Structures are given as structure tokens and as C-alpha cells.
């Protein structure tokens, strides 16, 4: 294992991972806050550091379409997007997963319009949560890099063959500079290996049809296969993390608890907020408050049992959602975690919708959540099931 320590932004980290992966084809369109990723990657290609074919398209709909075409042809394919770009890809996002094409895509999370906003929230990723894409989430630039390298192996596993989105927070992770480790080119090359597609469009000896009409007599069976691949992917993700630990020195889990074992109250979150919450947990622990934290790294497939087991001993839980489902009930993470806890616990679970459109989520806001939790744990009752945290009243 050889590592070098560098200061990079999250987008630089993603571009570096893509450089080391050296995909056959990348089709992408620039969109804030993804743009600097593709600029960096295009620079690597222009400098002759790798031999990827870059397809510069006129929209994200075409970007994902070109990716689907290239992947059907048997290429190792990547793209990247954010927000409206993902929304424009939506139709083809579903086609990529349904054709079982192992496309890997950094998804730099940004609010969806409107009103127009370019800053971080998770509404773009939540928009494709039911699309059959595996979703990994990163807390910092290091995890962006590490998750991307693992994503290739997960997507291309012959039992899985589903596309993977590697999520990270726009600007907060994508544009902020952090110290992080990069691994040796040869080690990464060996780890990601070579992609050998089972069916390819460009094999004259074995002609195949992709994208046939799938009427009521076959469609359901193909969707059932996708559900099966999604449930099998959890094991592949775990195995890949184990193997990757030989390179990176630590093993990625589906979920990661922080001071959770002996905690009485805890919050659950995705993305960069987990890092901020760690600092709050440390502060509270010094004051003798038994606070804990649970990070969700793997959101699709949803690790229901692991989450329920990690949380069942608590007295009160707050789920932080950086996206509102606008269902008048709460955010998407809240809904799924409440369902996961059903029958395992009757503890109060509350939801905080926060940080929409890049609204800051600082120590003060997270402290407020923990102090609410302390009250709920004491009384066993929550005043509000859903709180909009940081909104002006």
C-alpha cells in the first residue's frame, strides 16, 4: 500500500479517481457544481495522461444517452452530473439501470429548481432513488475518491450489473480543499481490473438486440431481476469494501456509527453534515451528554436491518433530511428509517428538514437538534414530528 497526501477539492478527487480508472468512454455536459470535475478530467485527457474517449454532448439527456450506447457496445463508461442535469437525464437514468449497464456517475448534489439555486441539497439524488441505481454517499473528498474506485467494481460485478451514483455535497465537498490520500496508479489499476461485458452490441459473431419492446409478458420479469440484483448488491458492496481496505487501510461499511454504542440520543444523516455533527457529538460528550451519530454511506440498497440494529437501543432519534419529499409527512430518509424501525422499537423518531438550497448547517443548528432530543428522551414525547431547521419563521 502506497499513498501520497495531497490537498484537493472533492471534484479534483473525483477527476483523479476517473483518471486512474481510465474509462473507455465519458460523455458529459458541464453543470454547476460538477463543472470543475469534468474540466479537470478533460484536462487529463487533453494532456494525454489517459486514452478515454470524451463525448462532448449538447445536454445531459444526450450525455446519458451516449453513455447507454457506449455501455451497450461493451465500453467501461462514466459520466457526472448535478441537479437539473440529472433531472434532464431522468428518462435515460432509468434506461441505464434497466438495460443493466454498469455506468458509474459522480453525482454532485445540488438543489432542484425552482426557484433557481445552485447550492447543495439532496433533492437531485432523491429524485432517482427508485431508479435502480446503487447510491453511495461520501462525507468528504477522501470518501468521494474511495467510493468511486469501489463503485466500478460493484457496478461491473456479473451478479449485479447496475449503475452506481457516488453522491457528494455540492460546493461543501466539491469545491472545498481537504487533505486526502491518493493511491498508487498501479494498485488502483489492479483493483479496478478489466471490464469484460457479457453481451455487446458490436460483436458480429454474436449479434444481440438491446432495447427491445418489453410488453406485459416480459417487463415484470425484468423488473424482478433488477430487484434481485439490488438485494444481492449489498454483499458485493461489503466484499468490495473488504478488498479495498487493503489499499486504503480502512473498511467502508454500509453505515457508520460514531460514539453510538453507549449513546442515548442520536442523529442520522447523509453527506457532509455527518462531519459537522461529529464535532457536536465530541462537544456534547465532554459535557457528559450521551450523544451519538449514525452516518448512512449506502442508501441504495437500503440497509434496513443494519440501521434498525444500530439504533434500537436509543431513547430518541432525529433523522436529518437535506431534501423534503413535500409529502406533508417528512423527508425521504425519515420515511425509510421509520419503516426500518417498525416492530423493532417504539422510541420517538423525529425529522429535521435542513439545509435546502445550500442553507448552512452549522454547529449551532446541530446542537439545537441534540437539545431537542434530550427533551424528547426525558419526556418520551416529541412536540413536532417534523421540524424545518434553519428556516426563518
Amino acid at each position, binding site marked *: 500500500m502506497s499513498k501520497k497526501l495531497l490537498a484537493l477539492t472533492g471534484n479534483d478527487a473525483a477527476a483523479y479517481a476517473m483518471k486512474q480508472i481510465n474509462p473507455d468512454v465519458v460523455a458529459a455536459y458541464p453543470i454547476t457544481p460538477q463543472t470543475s470535475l469534468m474540466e479537470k478530467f478533460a484536462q487529463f485527457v487533453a494532456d494525454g495522461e489517459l486514452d478515454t474517449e470524451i463525448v462532448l454532448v449538447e445536454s445531459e439527456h444526450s450525455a446519458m444517452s451516449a453513455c447507454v450506447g457506449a455501455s451497450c457496445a461493451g465500453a467501461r463508461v462514466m459520466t457526472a452530473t448535478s441537479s437539473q442535469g440529472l433531472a434532464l437525464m431522468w428518462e435515460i437514468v432509468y434506461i441505464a439501470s*434497466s*438495460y*443493466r*449497464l454498469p455506468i458509474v456517475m459522480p453525482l454532485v448534489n445540488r438543489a432542484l429548481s425552482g426557484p433557481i439555486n445552485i447550492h447543495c441539497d439532496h433533492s437531485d439524488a432523491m429524485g432517482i432513488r427508485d431508479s435502480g441505481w446503487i447510491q453511495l454517499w461520501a462525507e468528504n473528498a477522501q470518501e468521494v475518491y474511495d467510493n468511486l474506485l469501489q463503485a466500478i467494481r460493484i457496478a461491473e460485478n456479473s451478479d449485479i*450489473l447496475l449503475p452506481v451514483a457516488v453522491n457528494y455535497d455540492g460546493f461543501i465537498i466539491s469545491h472545498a480543499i481537504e487533505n486526502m490520500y491518493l493511491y498508487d496508479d498501479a494498485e488502483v489499476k489492479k483493483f479496478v481490473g478489466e471490464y469484460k461485458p457479457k*453481451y455487446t452490441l458490436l460483436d458480429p459473431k*454474436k*449479434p*444481440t*438486440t*438491446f*432495447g*427491445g419492446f*418489453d410488453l406485459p*409478458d*416480459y*417487463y*415484470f*420479469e*425484468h423488473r*424482478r*431481476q433488477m430487484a*434481485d*440484483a439490488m438485494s444481492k448488491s449489498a454483499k458485493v458492496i461489503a466484499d468490495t469494501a473488504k478488498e479495498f481496505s487493503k489499499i486504503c487501510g480502512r473498511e467502508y461499511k454500509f453505515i457508520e456509527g460514531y460514539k453510538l454504542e453507549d449513546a442515548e440520543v442520536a442523529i442520522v444523516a447523509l453527506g457532509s453534515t455527518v462531519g459537522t455533527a461529529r464535532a457536536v457529538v465530541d462537544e456534547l460528550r465532554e459535557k457528559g451528554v450521551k450523544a451519538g451519530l449514525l452516518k448512512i454511506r449506502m442508501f441504495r440498497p437500503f440497509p434496513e436491518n443494519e440501521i434498525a440494529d444500530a439504533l434500537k437501543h436509543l431513547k430518541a432519534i432525529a433523522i436529518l433530511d437535506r431534501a423534503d419529499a413535500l409529502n406533508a409527512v417528512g423527508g425521504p430518509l425519515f420515511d425509510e428509517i421509520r419503516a426500518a424501525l417498525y416492530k423493532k422499537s417504539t422510541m420517538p423518531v423525529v425529522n429535521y428538514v435542513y439545509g435546502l438550497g445550500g442553507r448552512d448547517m452549522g454547529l449551532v443548528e446541530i446542537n439545537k437538534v441534540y437539545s431537542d432530543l434530550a427533551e424528547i428522551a426525558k419526556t418520551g414525547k416529541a412536540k413536532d414530528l417534523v421540524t424545518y431547521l434553519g428556516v426563518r419563521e
Partner: protein
Amino acid sequence: MAKTEKVKAPSWKEVVIGGINPDAGSAMKYNSGTWRTFKPVWSEEKCIQCSLCWINCPDSSIMIKDGKVCGMDLVHCKGCGICAAICPVKPKKAIEMVKEEK
């Protein structure tokens, strides 16, 4: 004429993933001639073997043997009637559209 295969539909564990069809030319096996209201009826006596029906058929439902029209492939014919409309034989055409009897 290709015969439609009557086999038990495969389970989700058996079908090829992704809706991929690994068998080239398998459209011949699929009975797509179930939409018809009218079917073409061909008369060997009246036919002058001009092949206009064959070249105009939007599917491939005019059967040819030894360079001559020999019948209609009703497994794939959708009943569009182009063959009958294009047939130049007078006064009565060599292809007529007749209501399908189920």
C-alpha cells in the same frame, strides 16, 4: 413460413437480463399477425408475378419461392392492404382483402 414457437413463458430467473435478446433474427419466431381485421387472399391463377406486392410490403409477408410469389405469410402480416392496393391485375386484382374470421 416461420412457425410461431409455443413454449412456456420463462420465469424471471430464466429470462436474459436487461431485456437483451441474444438470438439474431428471432423476429421470425414472433407471431405479430394478430392485429389484423382484413387478411390478404392471393390468387395463383390471376397473379402475373410482377412482384410489386413483395417490394411494397412494409413487413416481409409476401412469400417468394424460386423467384415467384407463392403466398402470404399470415403469421407476420398486419393486414395493411398495401399489397392489394398496389396489385395491377385487371379487372379483378390477384390479391383481395377479406374480413378475418376468428
